């Protein structure tokens, strides 16, 4: 491709190629019970460190997926709402542009990715992220033997000074694609990939899939009338759609 063509092509804003896949998730707040099973599942799958009591006190926990609580009203009419917050894999991610070394970028699957071993730890992305779902390795965390035997070999263990975040369990996506290739399929089937959180969810509140596939369950739920995006007004174009909780009385 000549430099002029390149210039013409890459001059445009937005994504110059259609996403190969466009991984997205819907979270049904009416199903979600806030049981935190997904949080532990994420911890187990992605080698999230145990930061220890003192670091937790300093608010340095590393939980790629966390559940936020919001109270309505006061006793006796107090109502508690849960909302799982994970990386929204924004298509117009504020966190990607400011990285001076390009350690975080948007890949062809519509994923907002982080290359751990390229990161130099300016932490700008975390400042720019409105959802605060980027987590920093303040230290190199250790696993007391033999706990380290549990570490998932498909996910690298991050060292101190590195930013990390939810990847939609990209290693599982990769495995699924591998399987598809082995079986001479071009595409991954709907429901073939399930991030740890989605897999563990007992109420099936989380649904994951390819938004490019109109028949995928996630694509259908995407159009649900209860659907909305958190902090939509910031125009970050998240890939995660939340389905609003239903308020009902007997």
């Amino acid at each position, binding site marked *: 491709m000549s430099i002029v063509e390149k210039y013409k092509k890459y001059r445009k804003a937005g994504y110059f190629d259609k996403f*190969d896949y466009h991984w997205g998730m819907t979270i049904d707040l009416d199903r979600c019970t806030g049981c935190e099973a997904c949080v532990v599942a994420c911890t187990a799958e992605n080698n999230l460190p145990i930061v220890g009591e003192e670091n937790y006190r300093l608010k340095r926990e590393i939980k790629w997926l966390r559940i936020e609580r919001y109270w309505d009203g006061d006793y006796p009419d107090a109502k508690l709402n849960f909302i799982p917050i994970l990386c929204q894999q924004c298509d117009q991610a504020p966190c990607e542009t400011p990285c001076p070394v390009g350690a975080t*970028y948007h*890949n*062809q699957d519509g*994923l907002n*990715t982080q*290359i*751990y*071993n*390229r990161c130099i730890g300016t932490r700008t992305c975390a400042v720019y992220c409105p959802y605060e779902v980027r987590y920093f390795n303040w230290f190199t965390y250790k696993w007391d033997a033999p706990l380290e035997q549990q570490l998932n070999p*498909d*996910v*690298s*263990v991050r060292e101190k000074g590195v930013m990390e975040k939810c990847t939609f369990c*990209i*290693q599982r996506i*990769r495995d699924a694609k*591998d399987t598809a*290739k*082995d079986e001479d399929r071009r595409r991954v089937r709907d429901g073939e990939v399930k991030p740890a959180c989605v897999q563990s969810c007992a109420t099936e509140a989380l649904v994951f899939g390819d938004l490019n596939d109109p028949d995928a369950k996630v694509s259908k739920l995407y159009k649900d009338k209860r659907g909305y995006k958190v902090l939509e007004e910031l125009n970050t174009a998240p890939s995660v759609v939340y389905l609003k909780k239903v308020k009902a009385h007997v």
Partner: protein
Amino acid sequence: MSISVLDALQPFKKAVFIGLFGLFGLVVGVWANTTYFSDKAPVQPINFSHQIHAGENEIPCMYCHAHAATSTSAGVPSVEKCMGCHKAIATDRPEIQKLTNYWNNREPIPWIKVHDVPDFVYFPHKRHIQAGLECQQCHGDVQNMAVVTRVSDLKMPFCVDCHTEREVEHGRDCWTCHK
């Protein structure tokens, strides 16, 4: 008194020369180390010769490295596998006797990795075998090596260049290889 810069520079001449010699020495040192003390061909616990096995006897790579086509890691043959042949073959050779000792003590053989990628790299052998690559393209002509020697550093450019020229799908996307 003189205001000439050259005159002023005179006394620094020696210092500069010392610096230059030091620099030269540095280059020599690096060169010497990498040429004569290279870790490209580490000394293995058993002096195993791919030349004999893969070369002269023409045993296919995947007979021993059985998983290369089906798994991320090619797999190193189990001691049992070695013994499968060497119960009978060439049992008198000292190297084979080493092997037999390992087998008798039920100990694994601590081979030293020659070609190795860092932990943050995802390298599935099967993808590359299925893409029709020859083992030799990364590992060199192993069948002619009495002692296996690293032929490519397996650094990022090595992978990316190949991906680029073969126009691998998403071959230049970081997450294709990093994890």
